[in-house]
């Protein structure tokens, strides 16, 4: 079987990862600016289907002019051109905004309009969810850190969590760069990525630990690690593939809410697989060497 030298080339991987993370964050967060959905900003979102061929985003926008401040009308991605998304920012009384939108639509298109979805999030709730979302990700990281530290030696836990942070940063960076909007399902997907991508890492670590028991005397640590990555490589790639298959189906067929969710998983699982092969164990090697030198 062919053997790849992952550990020997690890500095190239570090460089690639840093470029990816810094690049995507500079572009996504600084240049483009992150977008937050109404889950986090508060506001109003109404999805409608209007059974009238002449209607477009411009005519709808005109309809709400002077009645709803800051209104935004877009076509719904992945739906027909008669499906529209009407968005309004959270002001003092978002309930009233919802009421006005419903009323205007009903008066104008009575019988020809179907209000498919209404979401209203008060500004305080948005703030709460924002804080809760960030806390959830931190808790998940801490929980996994504790578990891995308990099951493996601390140096493994350190590598695992660093790899996870790498995955989370790269995924959010790419997510922001393509201009998608953060929402609750996106946070859920990020947490799933965190829970999932650690799997691959753990499988490799498990093998390193197993090999260390028999081989530590006869082989340098770096080589053991590299062997372990190679031994688990087909498994790592194949599980990621099967998961990517279903996620791709979700991405293609799942529709609206699921689409963002699936996108995060698609990117996250790819990045996670890459980091389990190229980054997570390499960090352990460098950490191991550093500790040895200190002694």
């Amino acid at each position, binding site marked *: 079987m062919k053997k790849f030298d992952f550990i020997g080339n690890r500095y190239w991987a570090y460089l690639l990862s840093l470029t990816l993370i810094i690049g995507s964050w500079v572009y996504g967060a600084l240049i483009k600016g992150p977008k937050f959905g109404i889950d986090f900003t508060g506001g109003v979102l109404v999805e409608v289907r209007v059974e009238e061929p002449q209607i477009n985003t411009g005519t709808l926008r005109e309809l709400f002019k002077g009645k709803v401040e800051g209104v935004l009308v877009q076509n719904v991605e992945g739906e027909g051109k008669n499906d529209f998304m009407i968005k309004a920012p959270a002001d003092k009384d978002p*309930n009233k905004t*919802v*009421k006005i939108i*419903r009323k205007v639509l009903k008066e104008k298109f009575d019988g020809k309009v*179907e*209000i*498919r*979805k*209404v*979401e*209203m999030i*008060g500004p*305080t*709730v948005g703030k709460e969810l924002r804080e*809760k*979302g960030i806390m*959830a990700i931190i*808790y*998940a990281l801490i*929980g*996994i850190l504790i*578990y*891995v530290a308990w099951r493996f030696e601390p140096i493994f836990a350190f590598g695992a969590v660093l790899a996870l942070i790498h995955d989370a940063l790269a995924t959010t960076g790419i997510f922001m760069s393509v201009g998608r909007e953060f929402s*609750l*399902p996106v*946070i*859920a997907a990020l*947490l*799933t990525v*965190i*829970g*999932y991508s*650690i*799997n691959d890492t*753990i*499988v490799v670590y*498990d093998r390193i630990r*197993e090999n260390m028991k028999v081989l530590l005397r006869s082989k340098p640590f770096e080589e053991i690690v590299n062997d372990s990555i190679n*031994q688990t490589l*087909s*498994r790592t790639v*194949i*599980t990621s*593939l*099967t*998961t*990517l*298959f*279903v*996620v791709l*189906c*979700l991405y*293609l*067929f*799942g*529709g609206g*809410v*699921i689409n963002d*969710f*699936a996108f995060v998983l698609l990117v996250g699982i790819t990045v996670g697989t890459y980091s389990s092969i190229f980054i997570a164990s390499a960090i352990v090697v460098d950490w191991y060497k550093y500790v040895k030198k200190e002694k």
Partner: protein
Amino acid sequence: MKNLKWKLLFVVAIFLGALYLDLTKPINLGLDLKGGTHLVLQIDTEKALEDETSTALREIKRKLEEENIPVVSAVRKGTEIDIELLSPDYTEKTVSLIKEDYSQMFNITAKGKEIVLKMKPSYKSKEIDRLAEQALETIRNRIDQLGVAEPVIVRNGKDRIIVELPGVKNPERAKKVIGKVANLEFKEVVDTARTPDELITKLGGTIPNGATVLVKPSPSGPKFFIVRNGKEEELKVKSLEELVEKFGGHVPEDQQILYEEIKNKEGKVVGYTFFILKREPILTGAYLKDAYPSQDETGMPAVSFVLKDEGARIFSNYTKNHIGTRLAIVLDNKVQSAPVIRSEIGARGQITGQFTYQEARDLSIVLRAGALPAPVKIIEETTVGPSLGKESVEKGIKAGIAGIVIVMLFMAVYYKTAGVIADLALLMNVVLLWAMMVVLGATLTLPGIAGFILTVGMAVDANVIIFERIREELRKGRNLFSAVEAGFSRAWGTILDANVTTLIAAAVLFQFGTGPIKGFAVTLSLGILSSMFTAVFVTKVFLDLLVKFKPQIFRV
């Protein structure tokens, strides 16, 4: 061998049992799939507590007056009362007087001639709890009256209520009925005024020469302007009492000012009539036995009510002695109408006041169900139309089937007969996971469907780990039987570790998530558990059978 037979029987029994559940019992669908309205209500407990403090303040002032204790000032700040007496000589007596009635409610501290009453945190939290329970009860009653099938009404945290209304057709109406305070009061009319000027002068205030106070309607209530030399300037006042005091007038402690809206034919507010009322109501909505929509003598929609026996006694007593005076019917601090009492009124009465028929009907509902103990604000709404929910389910099924088929094909091609066995286990996983959700009464949401599909892709992970291990062992030259054994025993620890971490993430998600996301966390967790059973135990049983009886067709 015997052991294997029992294991096979066990697997088949579980499969059939799960399949039976899948086919006979329906799964709970979340609102995002079946359509409906999800509301989160915030109870304004602060307002209720402030009102209570105001009532206490009035009572304390009255008591001190009775006891001839001179007070310099007594004001409320939030849920705190600051009293300044004329001299510290009265402090001790005042404190003991207040303690008589309010030691439960306030922490009382006195320093010199100043006394501070701070609402006790324990009282606050008990009161908030009581308010929330009462609001929950009232809202439940109202929703019952609206006739929504299978609503969910639960408390969320200390001062929030979650309401789920499946399949509701008119969410705006439901919101209106749920959110209305519906505090009905009957109050004695002391005096009325058609203009702000008249109101101010009637209460002893004076309007500067050449000036006049104007009132204009706005969505948030009347706005006042002072007009002088043709220039208009808005008067920023929080209440009508404040307006009167601005011009040197005074509203007696036991009185208040409220207004009635004057509407045109289209129902638009065009002006106001002001009422000076006795603060203490003669009767409140608590005495109502029934309320129903009706018509007044001109044929306009109105709401008729029937009082309970005790209410009827109070009412007839009062009306008998006040024939010829006006009685204000006040709803949520707005005067609905103020009829002149012409004769003694018993148990039955009518509320008029330019309602539409729908408004009269909804008002009857809220009056029957009782008033909310505090205002509520709807801070979150999600309404999903029935067609969107149905489409979501269809899309989910499509994505799910496509995903399962691709994964199964891949496994069969890549791992050959072992892959086919993994496919059998995968199908069983789907059947089992669905059955677990049915049995546990878990709710399937849109993200839940995604979680379901995701576990399908992740479930084969355990099989991949095992099969790769078996391949490796075979390469080392082990025989088939021992390679399978070694593959399973070595893979188990890895599989466990890998799944526990995903469970940790799912548990965090469950903690943090709201409805749909919680559904995802639940599906994902259950999926991991059932996949550990099917991918490890079930696969092992089938592989053992194969190795035993048809080793020649085994390929991995």
